[in-house]
């Protein structure tokens, strides 16, 4: 026993880690292999028989993992863009231009005390952020990033989106009710009222598009907008686009419709009593929501992954690498060196004050940039999903920017103006849009 | 200095002015007794010859011998401030009529005077402490106020250093109260 202890004490940290991990890996690997040998066929058959379920699980996990960096990116965007609009500097400490600041914020939120106030309804209070976050990332499942990059191509994609997205308000209501706080209660009730009011024009505004395409599948809707940008639904259904944009602003609780967390009135609304990562979930869910509604808008109205104009040429950059033979490893080894020196040469020649290593570093960076750009161009040209994804993200982030811009510019609407606007203007307008579309379809056949 | 205003005031209120109208710089000062205060205020406000529609300030004054309530009024007709002093209020149980019947905005100023001097304004609907806590016992701007003396009666007595009980060694009512000479 004591021998074991002394041996353990003599080990370096790496050795200790190895001593712990090695048996686990060996035993686990052997066990897994044995299991696969014994039941491999059965497992394969089960997976093969239940592909949709496996696909759903895998897609859910991937979307869940995607949301976190997306939220970090959006939070950084909002911090930086609003700071620049406010004539501030904004985050500038962590990472280049403070780009990692939001990640650090996330870590900070993780490390904070997870405090449950006394007198809250503990199960509901604990579940509320989970519900809100789940509802927001589950809607990401049906977003058609590209024809080849759609997690779940549901036939009722649009309906699924509204149904699951509307589920988030249940979480807000749970948070508001269980917090035992009047601000939270008011915030929760406001969230419920706002979501119910704006769900209706939101859903009705896309009915015209459903009439035109004859499908609720988002992939089909995107496919119906192929061609030039004039085929996008924002030009064929402008009224619907306006209604839809206003409604998604309200749905994602963004300025000027952020009454649920109006800090001048009800402190932080439903999130008043939350701290630590539970608050972090609400916070993340808001930004994930912004991304998702922007993505939905660009899918439904901005042609999704289609390019604004149909590119008339498809460049064929087809190099058969196999023909190079021994030249391939030579090229792979020499190209960075030669490229770096070639790029460094002008710096070194024309800027004599720059030291040699600085010139070389600059040359390396330039070469890296150039080759990355070349590979990117090649990928866009050769791999359609990459180009599609690029266009889709371009449109989506333009919309995200518009959301941030609105937050930097507009004051908040009052709750009665907000509700009145939904019921008195948006609802009749969306009905009008449906009638006009239906009549147009009838006439033109 | 608005001589015409002084003349008008002297004529109109000659029956109730305690001392003749005083003027200094841009201020005109009249003094009326407690019984005539409401009538005088009403006359100053309502009569078109005066038209003092604005109550700029209302405050209490403790002269050491008596309490006073001081009103500062402004009117469009004159560039003078009119100061109406109601002297001779009993220090032991100060009571005065409220001005809220005419100027609802005087409510808080009366609450402040009540809080600071203990003057009870009859007719004010909301006469309670405005600055000090509800369980505070004394009235801080009175000339016989000691922090320590009051703290010994407050619920926090002896807890915080600031409010530890104890009066100045030679403090008696006679030596401590500062009395105004010319006020």
């Amino acid at each position, binding site marked *: 026993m004591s021998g074991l202890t002394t041996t353990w004490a003599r080990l370096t940290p790496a050795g200790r880690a190895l001593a712990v991990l090695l048996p686990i890996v060996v035993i686990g690997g052997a066990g897994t292999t044995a299991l696969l040998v014994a039941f491999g066929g059965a497992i394969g058959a089960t997976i093969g028989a239940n592909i949709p379920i496996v696909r759903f699980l895998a897609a859910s996990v991937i979307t869940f993992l995607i949301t976190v960096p997306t939220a970090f990116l959006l939070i950084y965007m909002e911090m930086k863009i609003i700071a620049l609009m406010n004539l501030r500097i904004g985050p500038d400490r962590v990472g280049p231009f403070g780009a990692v600041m939001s990640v650090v914020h996330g870590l900070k939120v993780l490390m904070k005390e997870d405090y449950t106030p006394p007198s809250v309804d503990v199960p509901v209070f604990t579940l509320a952020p989970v519900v809100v976050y789940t509802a927001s990332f589950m809607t990401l499942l049906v977003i058609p990033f590209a024809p080849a990059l759609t997690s779940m191509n549901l036939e009722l994609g649009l309906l699924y989106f509204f149904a699951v997205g509307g589920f988030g308000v249940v979480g807000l209501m749970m948070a508001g009710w269980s917090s035992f706080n009047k601000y939270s209660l008011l915030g929760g009730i406001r969230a419920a009222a706002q979501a119910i009011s704006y769900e209706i024009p939101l859903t009705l505004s896309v009915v015209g598009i459903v009439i035109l395409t004859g499908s609720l599948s988002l992939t089909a809707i995107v496919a119906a907008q192929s061609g030039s940008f004039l085929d996008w639904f924002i030009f064929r259904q402008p009224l619907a686009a306006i209604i839809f944009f206003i409604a998604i602003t309200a749905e994602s609780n963004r300025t000027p419709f952020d009454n649920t967390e109006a800090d001048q009135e009800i402190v932080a609304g439903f999130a008043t009593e939350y701290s630590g990562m539970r608050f972090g979930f609400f916070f993340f869910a808001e930004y994930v929501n912004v991304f998702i509604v922007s993505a939905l808008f660009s899918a439904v109205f901005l042609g999704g992954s289609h390019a604004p104009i149909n590119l008339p040429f498809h460049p064929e950059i087809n190099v058969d690498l196999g023909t190079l033979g021994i030249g391939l490893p030579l090229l792979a080894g020499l190209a960075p060196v030669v490229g770096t020196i070639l790029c460094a040469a002008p710096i070194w020649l024309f800027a004599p004050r720059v030291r040699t290593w600085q010139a070389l570093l600059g040359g390396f960076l330039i070469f890296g940039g150039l080759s990355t750009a070349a590979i990117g161009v090649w990928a866009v040209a050769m791999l359609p999903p990459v180009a599609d994804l690029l266009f889709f993200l371009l449109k989506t982030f333009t919309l995200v920017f518009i959301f941030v811009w609105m937050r930097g510019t*507009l004051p908040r609407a009052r709750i009665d103006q907000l509700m009145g606007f939904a019921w008195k203007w948006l609802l009749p307008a969306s009905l009008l849009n449906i009638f006009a579309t239906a009549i147009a379809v009838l006439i033109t056949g | 200095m608005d001589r015409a205003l002084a003349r008008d005031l002297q004529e109109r209120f000659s029956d109730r002015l305690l001392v003749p109208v005083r003027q200094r710089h841009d201020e005109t000062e009249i003094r009326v007794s407690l019984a005539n205060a409401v009538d005088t205020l009403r006359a100053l406000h309502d009569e078109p010859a005066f038209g003092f529609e604005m109550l700029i300030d209302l405050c209490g004054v403790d002269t050491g011998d008596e309490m006073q309530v001081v009103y500062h009024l402004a009117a469009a007709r004159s560039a003078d401030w009119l100061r109406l002093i109601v002297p001779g209020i009993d220090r032991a149980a100060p009571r005065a009529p409220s001005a809220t019947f005419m100027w609802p905005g005087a409510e808080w100023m009366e609450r402040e005077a009540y809080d600071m001097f203990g003057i009870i304004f009859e007719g004010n609907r909301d006469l309670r402490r405005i600055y000090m806590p509800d369980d505070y016992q004394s009235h801080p701007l009175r000339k016989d106020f000691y922090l320590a003396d009051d703290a010994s009666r407050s619920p926090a007595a002896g807890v915080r250093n600031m409010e530890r009980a104890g009066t100045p060694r030679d403090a008696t009512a006679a030596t401590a109260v500062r009395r105004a000479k010319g006020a």
Partner: protein
Amino acid sequence: MTTETTRPTRPSLDDPRVAIPGSSSWYEPAPTPQTERQAEFLNLRDGEMFINMGPQHPSTHGVLRIIVKVNGEQVIDLDPVLGYLHRGVEKLCENADYHQAICYTDPLEYVSSLFCEAAPVAAFEKLMDVEVPRRAQYIRVLTMELNRIASHTLFQGWMALDLGGLTPILWSFIERDEIVDMLAALTGQKLLYNYYRIGGVNGDLNHEFMSRLGAWMSRAAKHIDSNLGLMNENELFVRRTRDLGTLDAATALRMGVTGPNLRASGVPFDLRRDRPYLVYPELEFDVPTRTEGDALARYLVRIEEIKQSIRIIDQVLHEMPDGPVMAKLPRLIRPRPGRAFGAVEGPRGVYGVYAISDGTDQPFRMRIHDPSFVHLQLVGPLTRGNLIADTMAVMASLDPVMGGVDK
């Protein structure tokens, strides 16, 4: 080892809450009503509840607590609770000499503290019968108007912030920062200047102040106009403030309202013109008034006042005479017994000091009248029946500063 002793029945002697035995939560028992009005306020009808805003709340302009009685979103009644910032300045001034008293009044309205100095200084000068040198009068007008602009630009930003707009406050801080730096170059401090003295000002204008002022004046009007575009042409802002908290002239007079709030209701009462002090009678400026009396009108009147202040500064810079900046006065101020009321037109209304001298070197009584204190009374009457969000909008449009309210 008992669990009772770990939790005292009173958590702190300052805290009137009590513990419920056997429960882990605190509750605050309803206070016993002391007056008729409070009893009426504390009486909750069906569907009503109290919401407590402050003393720690994002939009109370300082440390103010407002108990709001709401029915859903609708405000039924509200009761401001003051005193969280009460420092007893009047009592402190009674125990200080006349110069020290000016220091005490300085931090009252910390947004525009030159006006808090100007009022007691005016009162003491009346007590001393001293004439301020003309150059000092011009300097006072100049610095006060600068401070008025600083205060009004800050108001503009706060108003937008209370309506949920993030950007205008930071834009308006550009002008305020510039003015504050300018005054710091003149007085040595950024917030509490302590610049006016009985009989003059503390030090003549210096080079840094004048050069900064010149640079700022050349672009001030343009900058302020560009800031305004963000709010005045904003449909949401205009819709939220128009017809909100409408105050008619008669009510305003009866409530003792002064300053821009009164002028927004259509009463053109401005001390600078109606009770001339310093060199204001010789300067040319308009008194902007509006007749609507709503929150938007109160906002627009202040914006117009910024422009008039720039106009006044322009004239002052052209007409400023040379000469001394302090009158000859004894070092120890010991006025004859008497009473004086000194008032100036501050950015929020009439800022007055009523000083009584008993012949010693300390004021016998120093009453400080603050316009914010009076205006805060209006929050209740003006928001009754509106929504919770309007409480903040109305309060922002009345522009109270809690440092002045709580004295």
